[in-house]
């Protein structure tokens, strides 16, 4: 009898506790700005940021949408490309051996640093370079993880399929692909956050004037610090939406699995 009540209370606690902590932190921040008389370029007060946010919801949303679209298309291209590449590499061993060092190299190159080059390559007045950056950045973790998943078949399952004379196609469909799914999703989770970050940061290096990154730099250069922070809030919202999207998809697809 007490059990359901306890669980409900605990669930409420789980939500309430971080919200409470966040409100406390905001209050402390506000107090610090007022009491210490901090200047806005050091850090503006939450209330000032809130005012800018509510006053400019429209333009912040437009900028956020532009960045989000770049991140989205980059993510889609990167993930599709990574899946195709991983499938081919898993099927053709030599190709895998050839591409392994390249994938490792790509993983350590800060792709965003290529932004100026890509703007020159694709033209600075189109979004192509930003999409390309998000695509390359999200390609790497999805490719590496999915390939590892396709390679990871439990020996007992391999023996089982061999003992039952399963064809290669059957083995792929019944064991290899379902087994690789959790690996794919952990790659996707990384790729999603990276796609948003890189699409936004790429805007710092040039290109068209829309997007959150551009908006933040121009707000700062016109000394409107609370507005810059309001755009940062917009970036946080975009990042959260992407994260929730990918982890929601993961939960929906893997919900019948064990938590191994």
């Amino acid at each position, binding site marked *: 009898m007490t059990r359901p009540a306890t669980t409900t209370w605990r669930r409420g606690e789980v939500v309430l506790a971080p919200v409470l902590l966040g409100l406390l932190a905001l209050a402390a921040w506000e107090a610090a700005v007022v009491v210490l008389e901090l200047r806005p370029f050091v850090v503006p007060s939450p209330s000032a940021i809130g005012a800018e946010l509510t006053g400019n919801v429209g333009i912040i949303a437009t900028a956020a949408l532009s960045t989000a679209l770049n991140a989205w298309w980059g993510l889609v291209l990167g993930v599709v490309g990574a899946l195709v590449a991983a499938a081919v590499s898993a099927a053709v061993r030599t190709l895998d051996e050839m591409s392994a060092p390249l994938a490792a190299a790509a993983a350590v190159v800060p792709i965003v640093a290529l932004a100026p080059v890509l703007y020159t390559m694709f033209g600075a007045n189109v979004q192509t370079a930003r999409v390309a950056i998000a695509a390359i950045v999200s390609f790497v973790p999805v490719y590496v993880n999915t390939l590892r998943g396709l390679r990871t078949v439990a020996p007992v399952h391999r*023996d089982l399929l061999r003992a039952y004379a399963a064809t290669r196609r059957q083995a792929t469909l019944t064991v290899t692909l379902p087994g690789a799914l959790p690996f794919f999703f952990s790659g996707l989770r990384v790729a999603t956050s990276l796609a948003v970050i890189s699409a936004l940061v790429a805007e710092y290096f040039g290109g068209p004037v829309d997007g959150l990154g551009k908006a933040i730099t121009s707000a700062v250069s016109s000394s409107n610090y609370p507005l810059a922070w309001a755009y940062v809030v917009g970036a946080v919202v975009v990042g959260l939406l992407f994260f929730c999207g990918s982890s929601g998809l993961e939960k929906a697809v893997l919900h019948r699995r064990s938590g191994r």
Partner: protein
Amino acid sequence: MNTPAPTRPTAPSAGPADAPAATGTEAHAAPAVEVRGVIRRFSSRSGEVVALSDVDLTVRAGEFVSLIGPSGCGKSTLLRLIADLDEPTAGELAVFGRPPRVARQNHDFGIAFQQAGLLPWRSVRTNVELPLELHGAGRAARRARATELLEMVGLADFAQHLPHQLSGGMQQRVAIARALAERPSLLLMDEPFGALDEMTREHVQTELLRLRAETGAAVVFVTHSIPEAVYLSDRVVVMSARPGQVREVVPVGLGAARDRSDDVREDNAFFDRVRAVREALHGTDGTAPRGVDRR
């Protein structure tokens, strides 16, 4: 050399394709498993390991034979050779008179391992259906057979559960049901109860005896446990390590599987056979310790 089998063929060993030829109609007249002069060597960086040295073994149709011996005696290797999961360096094997590869492709045997090896993303029912599905059985036939099998192993209520929701013993029973899915005349089991606690273990052993009586299948059963081997088997094949060899074959003779119950475990005949296997294993007959105590 301990108790070499008397019927070694003198003909030069030919390829598996020339193994004792039995036409399809006579297949069941052939023994379930026939192993002749099998050698399996593994080469590793630290040198060559002889896993099996000149092993002979015959398992008659419907017979329950356990392979027992210390780690490294090659008992699992032998089972893998019979299942065509591995190939011998020399010698011949036949399953119902056919080379293991053909037997495997004909789905002549069911198999279970120490790990249940269930697919974690499939329900208990669809795990049991797996062999039928791989071999193209229709949906309705698969469902009917899975229902029947799950009732047989006492898990009918768990058909929709996922493997991780089941205990180790229950998972192993699902794996056995899966092995029985195609009504094989031969079951190959590699320490299937090795990871279970003693009480669960005794329970599933009795269950296996019952299933075996119902199906009439021959069983090759790899185990570490002397009482388990004695309780289940018609004959216990005692093996020794380095190199893996058959040291002795101990007949059990505790009666037909259908007549054995848990009471057998407290029977004097049972203890007598346990002692016989233990002595064969540890070599108290005075000749064997050389091989065991070398280091």
